[in-house]
């Protein structure tokens, strides 16, 4: 008997077909876009809403490979560097602090009593709602933007780490103590290394929200950055540039996620098992 190649519970899709099916939705959307763009351009050759492929290519060339006429800089790279710096600083700080706090809260009931309700409270505040407060109190500098990313993902990461540490069987702690570990040794040499890949996974999941907070902050007050540029050129209806930036952000997001996934796979084989 053979497994069906597509339909039903018992189906086993072959590798080639998997690739084909996986690419199909992308092909659909590209074709759909091309047709729509073509129709609009037939009606009005100056249409800006759905730029043609050649217009997008020229936008890419303009923002990525030629100097800006006004500033003499390559806009896409400048914006990417500014945004990535904010994103990475915010995410790394949030991850480090969340790891330490979540781990210690889960291990030490005394600390937990002190922090738990406060962290729960913080995590309920919609970060975007306090963005004005951040800009008013910290100015429109880097700090406010980084802080928004930080405050947006830090509580979620902390609670994720907290829950993961709580899931580690109590037996492991006792076992480590019987092997001569001190209390801090248990926390930092037995539990922390086990929770680290989980942190990387949690960071992967929170990267999406990190981008959201970054772009929101840049849209409101910035002088460079991917979000800033998108909202700036929106005024001129420069869909060719916006589309270029959106695709670029998506690519960066995918690469960050992929990198973290590969790190976990390579360095934590026992976690992926």
């Amino acid at each position: 008997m053979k497994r069906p190649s597509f339909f039903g519970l018992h189906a086993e899709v072959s590798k080639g077909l998997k690739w084909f099916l996986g690419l199909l939705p992308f092909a659909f959307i590209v074709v759909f876009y091309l047709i729509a763009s073509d129709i609009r351009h037939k009606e009005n050759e100056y249409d800006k809403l759905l730029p043609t492929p050649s217009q997008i290519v020229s936008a890419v060339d303009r923002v990525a490979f030629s100097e800006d006429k006004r500033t003499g800089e390559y806009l896409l790279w400048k914006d990417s560097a500014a945004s990535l710096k904010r994103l990475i600083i915010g995410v790394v700080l949030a991850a480090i602090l969340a790891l330490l706090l979540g781990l210690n809260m889960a291990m030490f009931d005394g600390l937990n009593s002190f922090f738990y309700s406060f962290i729960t409270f913080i995590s309920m505040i919609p970060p975007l709602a306090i963005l004005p407060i951040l800009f008013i109190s910290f100015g429109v500098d880097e700090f406010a933007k980084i802080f928004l990313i930080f405050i947006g993902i830090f509580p979620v990461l902390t609670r994720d780490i907290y829950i993961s540490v709580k899931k580690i069987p109590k037996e492991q702690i006792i076992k480590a103590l019987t092997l001569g570990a001190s209390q801090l040794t248990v926390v930092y040499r037995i539990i922390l290394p086990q929770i680290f890949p989980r942190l990387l996974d949690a960071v992967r999941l929170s990267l999406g929200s990190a981008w959201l907070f970054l772009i929101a902050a840049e849209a409101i007050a910035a002088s460079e950055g991917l979000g800033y540029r998108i909202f700036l050129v929106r005024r001129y209806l420069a869909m060719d540039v916006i589309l270029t930036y959106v695709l670029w952000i998506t690519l960066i997001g995918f690469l960050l996620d992929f990198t973290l996934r590969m790190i976990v796979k390579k360095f934590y084989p026992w976690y992926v098992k």
Partner: protein
Amino acid sequence: MKNFLHIEDLYKQYGNKVILDNIDLSVKKGEICTLVGPSGCGKSTLLRIILGQELQSRGDISIDGKDVGFASSDRGIVYQRYSLFPHLSVLENVMLGHTLEDGFFERRKNRKKYEKEAMFYLEKVRLGEHAHKYPHELSGGMQQRAAIAQALLKKPKILLMDEPFGALDPDTREDMQLFLLELWEENPMTIFFVTHDLEEALFVGSRLLVLSQYYMDDRGKQAKDRGAKIVGDYLLDANVKSTDFKQSQEFKKLVKKIRSSGFDPENEQHVRDFNLNHPDSYQTLEDYEDSSQ
């Protein structure tokens, strides 16, 4: 004179529910003491109290004359599961007994020495060739052997084992029982072995304790808040025996006797009539338990 492991008037209760009810126990050094009882009688609770994972409600426990506190390196433990740390290789797991006590530089300096010693124990539990695998790559029996090596390296005063072979298939289980007896014969350490399997307890132990909630005392039948007591205490043949021993008439008779006295809710012995024949056995009863004394 207190014996090596000494427990006196030990009670454990959760809220109003009494689990362990006036436990008295005295175990000498080098004994391989097995504890059986019906499920839910509190066997594991007693082990966890000795281990320092849980605290007793009342009563004293001492090992080697010292009151036991929270879990520490004088007691070793092998659990049914979770004894090995998943993020370390088998070798690193076994080395932990040394490396956990060392600082960052010390443990790097001594690495070779520790590895050699850990390998010695791994060879002893026949896992030499698997030293560099992760625990999840080993079978259940191999994981438990590694856990035993891990505990042995620390040379604990007493090795506690909580259903160590409970998750293994019958053949592997029998292998492990023989293996443990061989290890013990080579190096007679004090072992406290909890199991729900009476035949295993009889086969492995040099002394068998039966813990049960099915008994009677002078509080009368209506007393519902009674916890488990040690209702049987037997001296066993401590030598390594072949597994044929389990088929012998003598073995089967003993199994039957213990099953009816300890595991049968219908057959409640009075506290006065417990079979506490072991020379080290002792029992101090309260007046409400036995008014005839």
